[in-house]
């Protein structure tokens, strides 16, 4: 199998998952398209580093995450992101929730964020949002997330815990309306 065939048979099938990740990181279709394309081109450039039959999805997610951090977040297209640690250190989690309530309502009113879950997720600092997307949406293990994000497993666990505490409060009303126990 040549590199092109390897790319099309093992890497390209993850395009949907990769696009979903990119979209939720950027909340913009054009930016998500650019990010996915760039990640795939980088993957192809370094395909000699990829071991056929190993975890292609995690490898691609790591490339996309690095592309997002190195290229995309530095570009002027995004407003400055708030450092999650700073946010958590300064405010109590309840205060974070309170401060986002108005944003959430505005976003829903304007229809800019799509559904309520997207809006809640998008209001999280990007480092929190990323672990939720990787764990709860894509089903990666803590070990895989640790490799994708290049952070210790303990950090994966604490980010997930903090992110879920914020989401739990935000989505409580939604959960009740959907018939889930509060």
């Amino acid at each position, binding site marked *: 199998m040549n590199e092109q065939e390897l790319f099309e048979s093992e890497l390209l099938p993850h395009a*949907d998952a990769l696009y979903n990740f990119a979209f*939720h990181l950027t909340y913009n279709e054009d930016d998500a*398209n650019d990010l996915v394309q760039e990640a795939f081109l980088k993957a192809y450039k370094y395909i000699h580093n990829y071991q056929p039959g190993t975890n292609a999805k995690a490898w691609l997610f790591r490339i996309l995450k690095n592309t997002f951090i190195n290229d995309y977040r530095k570009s002027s297209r995004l407003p400055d992101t708030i450092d999650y640690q700073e946010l958590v250190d300064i405010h109590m989690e309840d205060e974070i929730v309170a401060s986002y309530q108005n944003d959430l309502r505005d976003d829903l009113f304007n229809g800019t964020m799509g*559904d309520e879950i997207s809006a809640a997720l998008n209001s999280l600092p990007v480092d929190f949002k990323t672990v939720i997307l990787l764990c709860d949406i894509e089903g990666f293990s*803590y070990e895989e997330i640790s490799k994708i994000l290049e952070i210790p497993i303990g950090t994966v666990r604490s980010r997930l*815990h903090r992110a879920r505490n914020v989401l739990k409060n935000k989505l409580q009303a939604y*959960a009740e309306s*959907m018939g889930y*126990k509060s």
Partner: protein
Amino acid sequence: MRTIKHSCKDIQAKIELYLDGELDRFTRQNVDEVISECPFCKSEFDNQSSLKKILHVGLKRRECTDQLRKNIVSKIRGL
């Protein structure tokens, strides 16, 4: 009805790991046994489980368009 001696705090700290599939079988069984008897742990389990379900099922997934896929393939083939 037998009561399993446990610390709710310890069990509740394990619930996220349980739901994320990060516990070994023995610890998982221990959590199962406790939540079948302790209403506080059961309630926390249900809350965490609901949140995970809401996120997984409720978040609208976005898909790569055919056009993007075609663009990527044509760029790769052109290299």
